[in-house]
């Protein structure tokens, strides 16, 4: 026993090193799957506070630009409301509409930290569980899709950006409805990859790529980007397509978190299929 202790003490540097590395790798393993954002929840409150105060200082610098973006969006929304349409029919019956039920709710949030240069990029938002944000909710900006919520604490949430090796978004071409999926292969934050589009589909550069609505989290028809270039190697069944993201990830400031009101119902149905 004494020899064992002597041995441990003699090489303690190595054993301490091994112990600390094991702790580090356990932490990595617990977080590799993007669902397992457990550590994040306690840490978010602390780091979120630091980022928030840093952000408060720099907010002033971008006030003008943000005002412009919000004003543009307001104008767009205003154009969509009933009052801006001229009525052509005179006789009208108003009925309480039970035909339509709201499926998606939008929660606005501000980005307080963001990265685009890493292989796996995350954003942090200034709203969290208390404001109704939950894991796996979709995040969109006024220009298009941004990412998926992967960790929530009381007042902050962490978002796995589209610029992440694990992100895979179900997409389709607006013109032909051909479905595929969008991933990011690193490199430029402006370019993504669209895969799984079969070779018989016709397309052109500049065609619009939107969300397919097959996933439970993203509403259908949200802009992802436009086709930058496409290629079909001889004998391949699927295209290799590069797309330009419509969202400028470098300038994200205000985003919306999308809440699917029917998600529980849809999930239940999906589970019952497997039984």
């Amino acid at each position, binding site marked *: 026993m004494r020899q064992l202790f002597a041995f441990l003490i003699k090489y303690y540097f190595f054993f301490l*090193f091994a112990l600390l590395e094991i702790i*580090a790798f356990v932490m990595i*393993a617990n977080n590799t799957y993007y669902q397992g954002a457990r550590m994040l929840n306690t840490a978010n409150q602390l*780091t979120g506070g630091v980022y928030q105060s840093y952000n408060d200082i720099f907010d002033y610098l971008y006030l003008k630009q943000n005002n412009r973006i919000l004003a543009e969006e307001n104008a767009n929304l205003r154009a969509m409301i009933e009052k801006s349409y001229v009525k052509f029919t005179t006789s009208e019956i108003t009925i309480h509409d039970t035909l339509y039920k709201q499926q998606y709710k939008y929660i606005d949030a501000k980005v307080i930290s963001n*990265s*685009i*240069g890493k292989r796996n990029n995350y954003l942090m938002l200034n709203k969290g569980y208390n404001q109704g944000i939950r894991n796996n909710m979709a995040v969109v900006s006024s220009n298009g899709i941004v990412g998926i919520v992967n*960790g929530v604490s009381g007042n902050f949430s962490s978002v796995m950006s589209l610029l992440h090796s694990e992100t895979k978004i179900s997409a389709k071409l607006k013109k032909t409805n051909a479905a595929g999926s969008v991933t990011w*292969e690193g490199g430029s934050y402006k370019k993504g990859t669209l895969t799984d589009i079969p070779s018989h589909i016709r397309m052109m550069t500049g065609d619009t790529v939107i969300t397919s609505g097959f996933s439970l989290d993203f509403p259908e028809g949200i802009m992802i980007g436009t086709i930058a270039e496409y290629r079909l190697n001889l004998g391949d069944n699927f295209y290799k397509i590069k797309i330009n993201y419509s969202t400028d990830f470098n300038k994200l400031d205000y985003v919306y978190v999308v809440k699917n009101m029917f998600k529980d119902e849809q999930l239940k149905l999906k589970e019952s299929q497997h039984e």
Partner: protein
Amino acid sequence: MNNIYFLNISRFFLLILLQVLVFDNMQLNGYINPYVYVLFILLLPFETPQWLLLISAFLLGFGVDLFSDTMGMHTAACVFMAFCRPGVLRLVFSSKDYEVGITPGINDLGFNWFIRYSIILVFIHHLLFFYLEVFNFHEFFYTLGRVILSTIATLVLIIIGQYLFYKKK
């Protein structure tokens, strides 16, 4: 003696904040990420006990991990870098010998010594970190390019910092 503790502890917090608030926002082509905070491990005094070296590297990496959602990756890279430090110090032995009271910086041991010493350790750290971040060997050479360019960026920033904050005696 107290002075040394105070200097290193304040450097610890300052470098973490600098890293997450300034250097993490430097987007050099989306390809290069300098990790300047490892300067803390480089500049620890020679007489630092080995256990303290490992523990402080662990805490340093953990601190940066908390801010950048890379739970454990910086920690693993930092601990490994600290583990290699005594070996690297023996490897790049200086003619001046490591006397008590001098620190491993440009000021005491000169530019040539410092660059040999830091290039090895920074490269070790970046190599481990970038491959842990990607977590596969699919993009092996792409990642290796990022490691090399980021190492150079980190070294340049570290050396500029050394000349800015340490006056010649």
